[in-house]
């Protein structure tokens, strides 16, 4: 019986015990039911970041369809959930639990989300159901940007990510930023503290978004963003916080994933122009639309609106360097955008552990509900939940990984810990840094060596408690490899 089943059982027990207790109100059962459902749902990943950091665009790129509305100015105003569903639907929960369905309307492949007669401040939850293979794995949550000039918009996001009461509803967070500002440091710190007190999401993946614009869009590459990402790794402002930021260009990825034949045809015609003419036209959006080029003006306007100047430059340079047809260009755009790395990271960090992450969230929620609704009948269940939280090694791993940035250990040790605790993937080979096809015997020998190494580290007398715990967790992980 794995951990998730244990958690399921505990919740079932708690429900039956509490249902029998006449003093407990009915909504507690509803909470527990939601908690139970959460175990069967996909992992909840929230996209967070300051205003205009490209959260909705990245969400669209991940899904491969334009279902989150985007605009040049501030656009997302309420926390929006994107979950799997067999048919497209839009539901608004407002005014204390009322659910209203909204019509699903699309123009040019973009989903229009309007709240109808409900104003944004009354909305509790906006839920979009969509058939998509990615949403089978993850429920994505798009949050409005922080640092917004509309105070209530920022407040809604903060209330979702770092609630004063209860725990964060997301299991993991993808944090987007364009460059490091004090607002980012403050938000990251607050997320970190929430995770530290066991009320926040345990996993954070950092993304350096709009990476194609980092150097002013002059060169069609993410090199400048990669340099910035390397700088961030040593930035003192991020001491004790998350410092791995993947450069990703949401726009390029989205265009790659939704590229249409006529777009490619237009781009190819442009690419065939003499370099001088093209260069002169690409000086500004006004010139590009205004100059008489190979394709009609309305098409050029559409291209500019969809790709932006940076996107057009990137696409043209990819065509010049050999993308001959639409599928090739689409693949190149996606590869170029860094989306694949993000998807890989999501898979290794969350995908393989989604059951554990969900079980952890569910257990914590169960625990807080039981703590609130004390009843002599549930003492046993409460203790069992505590025991499960403390004893399950996978939860220990998750907690140590979440606090890894804080440990006072040298960088190589931190990286080694990250590997061995399964931060980069939970297969034995990844944990030990071996090639994927390593033989079981070799793996065993290496695991033994690793145990010896971490034991040696433990004998250091000046270690503080968190470090000791993390080394012990590492030993335990290695033992688990040998045992399996």
């Amino acid at each position, binding site marked *: 019986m794995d951990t998730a089943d244990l958690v399921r059982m505990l919740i079932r027990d708690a429900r039956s015990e509490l249902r029998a207790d006449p003093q407990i109100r009915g909504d507690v059962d509803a909470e527990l039911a939601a908690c139970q459902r959460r175990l069967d749902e996909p992992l909840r990943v929230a996209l967070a970041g*300051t*205003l*205009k950091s490209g959260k909705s665009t990245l969400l669209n790129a991940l899904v491969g369809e334009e279902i989150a509305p985007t*605009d*040049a*100015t*501030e656009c997302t105003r309420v926390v929006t959930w994107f979950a799997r569903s067999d048919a497209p639907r839009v539901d608004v929960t407002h005014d204390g639990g009322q659910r209203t369905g909204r019509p699903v309307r699309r123009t040019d492949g973009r989903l229009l989300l309007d709240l109808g007669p409900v104003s944004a401040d009354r909305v509790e939850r906006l839920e979009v159901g969509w058939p998509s293979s990615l949403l089978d794995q993850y429920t994505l949550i798009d949050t409005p940007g922080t*640092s*917004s*000039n509309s*105070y209530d918009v*920022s407040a809604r996001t903060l209330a979702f990510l770092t609630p004063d009461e209860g725990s964060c509803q997301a299991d993991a967070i993808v944090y987007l930023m*364009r*460059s*490091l*500002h*004090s*607002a980012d*440091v403050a938000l990251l710190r607050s997320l970190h503290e929430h995770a530290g007190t066991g009320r926040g999401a345990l996993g954070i993946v950092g993304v350096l978004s*709009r990476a194609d*614009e980092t150097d*002013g*869009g*002059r060169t069609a590459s993410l090199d400048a963003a990669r340099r910035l990402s390397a700088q961030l790794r040593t930035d003192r*402002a991020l*001491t*004790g916080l998350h410092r791995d930021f993947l450069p990703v260009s949401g726009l390029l990825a989205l265009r790659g994933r939704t590229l249409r034949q006529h777009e490619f045809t237009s781009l190819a015609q442009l690419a065939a122009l003499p370099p001088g003419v093209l260069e*002169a036209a690409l*000086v*500004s*959006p*006004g*010139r590009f639309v205004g100059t008489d080029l190979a394709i009609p003006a309305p098409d050029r306007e559409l291209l*500019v*609106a969809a790709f*932006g*100047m*940076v996107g057009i430059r990137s696409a043209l340079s990819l065509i010049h360097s050999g993308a001959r047809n639409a599928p090739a260009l689409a693949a190149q755009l996606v590869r170029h955008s860094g989306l694949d790395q993000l998807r890989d990271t999501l898979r290794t960090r969350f995908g393989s552990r989604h059951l554990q992450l969900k079980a952890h969230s569910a257990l914590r929620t169960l625990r807080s509900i039981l703590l609130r609704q004390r009843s002599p009948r549930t003492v046993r269940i409460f203790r069992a939940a505590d025991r499960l939280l403390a004893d399950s090694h996978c939860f220990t791993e998750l907690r140590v990984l979440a606090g890894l940035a804080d440990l006072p250990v040298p960088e190589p040790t931190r990286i080694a810990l990250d590997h061995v605790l399964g931060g980069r993937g939970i297969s034995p080979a990844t944990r030990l840094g071996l090639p994927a096809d390593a033989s079981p015997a070799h793996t065993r020998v290496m695991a033994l060596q690793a145990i010896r190494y971490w034991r040696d580290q433990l004998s250091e*007398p*000046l270690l*503080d408690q968190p470090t000791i715990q993390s080394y012990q967790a590492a030993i335990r992980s290695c033992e688990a490899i040998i045992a399996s």
Partner: protein
Amino acid sequence: MSVMSDLRTGTDTRSTAMMTELLDRLRVLTDAARRPDLGMRLAQARTRVVDPRLRIVVTGQTGQGMSTLVESIIGAPVTATGAAGPVVVSYSDSEFVRPIRATTSGGATDGGPVPRIEVGTCHDLLAEGVVLIDTPGTSGMDSARAGTVLSLLPGADAVLFVSDASQEYTEPEIAYLRQIQQLCPTIVGVITKIDLYPRWTDIQRANRTHLTNAGLDIPLLPLSAAMNETARRGNDPELAVESGVPQLVDFLRHRVVGDADLVLRHAVVNDVRSVSDHLAMALNAELDALNDPRNGAELVQRLQEAVHAAEALRQRTANWQLVLGDGVTELSVDVEHDLRHRLRSVVREADANIMTSDPAKRWEEFGAWINGRIAESVQDNFVQAHTRSRDLAAKVAARFAEEGQVAVPQLYLDYTGSILEPVQSLEPLDTRKAGMVQRVITSMRGSYGGVLMVGLMTSLAGLALVNPYSIGAGLLLGANTFWEDRKAQTARRQAEAKAAVARLMDDVIFQVGKESKYRMREAQRILRDHFTTTATEMLRSADDALRAAHEANQVHTEHRAGRISEVHNCLSELRQLRVRAAAL
């Protein structure tokens, strides 16, 4: 840029020539009247007319293209992106780059220079007296940087606030704009990189909405440095106009330079008017006495009253002196109270922070945080002091202004960055862990007592001193001592940390208090000197008039007609000068 130089208007230089000529002619009259005090005032006005230096500060968050904008305006690569201090670009025939370091002792109080890089280059906008100051980006990562920029603002004639077209204004940006506006009312919002973002008009509209909501009235100019660069290389005037940079230069030249020109012209008109008033007073008195010798006594009486009035204004008991004295006392009390209040809330936050956990582990981080908070509080306090001093100046001027218009002297907020330098930083906390040995000894000591106590008691019952009961008690007490010791250590460190914060605050209050008292005194001195000089001039004029009237009574009848026509000439010349000044 060559396009722009053709557009350069000739009016500026023409009006400068007119103003200097006017001042020179008035100077001849003042010299003839033997009034060196008024002559000095005219000389000062003349220097201002001849050298109208305009300081334009370029600021914004990091990475918005500030340095690129400066380069684009002057059309030469002169600025070093990411420089630690401000880069001051001014006119020079030969190009140079010169780093200036801060004076190490004394800080800014003795007028020591702000650490900066000075760049000289040849460009026609700079030749008109514009000095561009490119500041490091204030992404807010450390408030000390923002402080350096803030200290530059009160002396600035205009501020270019740079934000790129990739996104609308964020909340920190609006907050910063509000702060800027308190220090320098002329702000131009520049939206850069419009060549990259096709939807920049939407951004501009959104920014306009945010500004309106915040109650800020700021012109927004969209531009693209890259397009301007392409235009310059390809010699494409049309593209240059599209890039928006010439419009900005134009705006700076006509609105900002023009506004400054207007202020200057006002000052000159004011000077001409008041100097000619002073001169005319004596001449008119003389003329009256010459025309009508019989009314001499009455005239003398009237003039004596004027002398008394001017005398009274100069007295220490004059009304404006009282307003000034009271105002400064009130102001320094308020400013000090404000500072203490701000720092008290910092201390309260710090105490709460310390009590959350053992401070030793995060002492460095805590130190950085508290330094930031202190710098922020001191900045805000200075801004407040500055605005309040300006209000006080206006109040004193209003009190003084019974005798026509009085120019308010300009006050400067000095460099605030180095005030905190003499302050000792947060002292290190004993982060050492008590060694295992130490702990074992402490616990042994505890357990020893336990063994002894229970052992002695049980020895009465015939057991040995060391028996299972006494050992058990020893273990219990030992463990208890161990935990107590640990708790006591954390508590001790927390107390130490609080004491360190309190000492730091004392130091800050002492240094900043000294500094702000000095500033208050300086402001008081500037105001007092300014108004005393004005009062002295008035007294002198009244005295001169009185003397002239006396002398006129003594003039012999046959010289009288000649003198009358002389005085008439002088008066008509003065009138003419005034008319011309008014037409400026």
